[in-house]
């Protein structure tokens, strides 16, 4: 169920260049079920900014009624969010959207988790839940450069983890798709979140595999009412049928929507 709540800031940690980890506490944590869902934050009380900001959930900690988000301070909203201190409150609407289907990967099977930049965070909760189910996880994480890398060790504790950077300053130089090809990684299910060109490349690279992709799009309401974040469907790419990224997604099966 979607709730609106003033959540308390527990911690705010800078993880990498412009990348922050924010931990919030609130009862709506107990509504969070699937990895890959997101929350919609009203960052300031006034009109600067006015609209909410969608941010993915990186980790759910039900015992403490807390959850973590990792975001990049980029625009006005996220820059203000990075100034929040422990003890502050922020208005949270969520959890929203449909996350990654974890039951698709069975016990003993292998899941490949591929993240790009600020698309990496939701894969952490996904990885935890898959490991809990007895699924073997392999992570391939892409970043711009060494200064943008985060959570490498935390992912490594869950399973094998490979990092790629565009400039080669950390891990392998190149794209995540290069790493997967070079290492010839075998898997049963692929889950990914990141920039659209990366998602497209993965969709094309593995047309016969079970692939699930989390999309990003500019949103208005976050609950499916405003029709800002729609995309065409794979079976009707030029027609009238559509999916809303916020409420039908943000996770879709590869081919379900036009990237």
């Amino acid at each position, binding site marked *: 169920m979607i709730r609106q709540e003033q959540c308390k800031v527990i911690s705010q940690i800078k993880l990498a260049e412009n990348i922050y980890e924010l931990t919030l506490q609130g009862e709506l944590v107990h509504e969070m079920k699937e990895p890959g869902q997101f929350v919609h934050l009203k960052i300031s009380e006034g009109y600067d900014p006015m609209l909410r900001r969608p941010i993915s959930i990186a980790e759910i900690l039900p015992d403490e009624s807390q959850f973590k988000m990792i975001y990049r301070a980029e625009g006005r909203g996220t820059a203000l969010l990075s100034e929040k201190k422990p003890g502050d409150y922020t208005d949270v609407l969520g959890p929203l959207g449909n996350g990654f289907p974890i039951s698709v990967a069975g016990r003993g099977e292998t899941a490949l988790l591929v993240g790009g930049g600020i698309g990496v965070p939701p894969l952490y909760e996904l990885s935890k839940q898959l490991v809990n189910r007895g699924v073997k996880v392999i992570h391939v994480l892409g970043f711009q450069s060494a200064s943008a890398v985060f959570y490498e060790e935390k992912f490594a504790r869950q399973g094998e983890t490979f990092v790629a950077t565009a400039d080669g300053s950390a891990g392998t130089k190149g794209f995540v798709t290069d790493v997967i090809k070079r290492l010839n990684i075998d898997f049963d299910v692929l889950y990914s979140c990141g920039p659209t060109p990366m998602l497209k490349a993965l969709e094309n690279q593995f047309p016969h595999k079970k692939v699930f992709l989390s999309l990003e799009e500019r949103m208005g309401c976050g609950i499916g*009412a405003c*029709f*800002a974040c729609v995309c065409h469907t794979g079976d009707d790419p030029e027609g009238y049928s559509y999916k809303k990224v916020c409420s039908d997604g943000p996770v879709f099966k590869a081919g379900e929507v036009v990237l």
Partner: protein
Amino acid sequence: MNSLNVSLPGLELKNPIMPASGCFGFGREFSQLYDLSKLGAIMIKATTLEPRFGNPTPRVAETSAGMLNAIGLQNPGLDKVVNEELVWLEQYDVPIIANVAGSQEEDYIAVARKISANRNVHALELNISCPNVKTGGMAFGTIPEIAKNLTKKVKEVSEVPVYVKLSPNVTNIVEMAKAAEDGGADGLTMINTLVGMRIDLKTGKPILANKSGGLSGPAIKPVALRMIYEVSQQVSLPIIGMGGIESAEDVIEYFYAGASAVAVGTANFIDPFVCPKIIDELPELIGKLGYENISECTGRSWNKFEKTSHYCS
């Protein structure tokens, strides 16, 4: 006496608060959050004869105290709206105001005829003011003679009262309002969005794929208030006011300007519970202002005969 009851052509409203068209879909999403029967009415998303996918994304961009949108009248088309959305909405005790759009006169007439025949549709909102479509939309709402004729034709086929939604993108709003009145409109809704643009500093190009979009939110409230103030003194039609409303105080301000009911748009995206919150807060504010019913507030800003010294906080 209930302080929020309002009576308008075709609409016996338990309160004068309704979500604005395009900001509430067909209600399904918000029904997960609260009981839609609490609302005075619902202005459903614009309906066209054929389905429309709308514009490419990005379709929204934030601005100072407002937002731009260029959705492009995405909707499943008349048949689906009538057979699925309106049927689903029948479970709620709330009158529906159906927003009717089109790219040519025949479209408007066909949609108005069929949609007005539904038992939960109590009024039409004639959308001659959408800025985000290439043909039709706002083109019908900026030339008085065309607006008048379209209103007249839609009135001839509609089984329920017709409210004409005015565009603020005109030099003389009173002239447009009079055109709608001459065409036989039963009421006005105002205002639709103001055409605007934002440019991405990285690319140097407009943020919206459609380039321009409609500005809504608190930024446009003073524009709407001024237009309602002028129109309400010049025409005798009731006005449903809209533009940046997000509190009970905003509602009263609109009534003072000359509105008889209001619609809440953009604020639904920021606080999805804003409509029920305003409905809960209004009775106390009306009492504090010394009124028995909110209708007494209509036109206070220009009504010379209205008794003064209401406010006693």
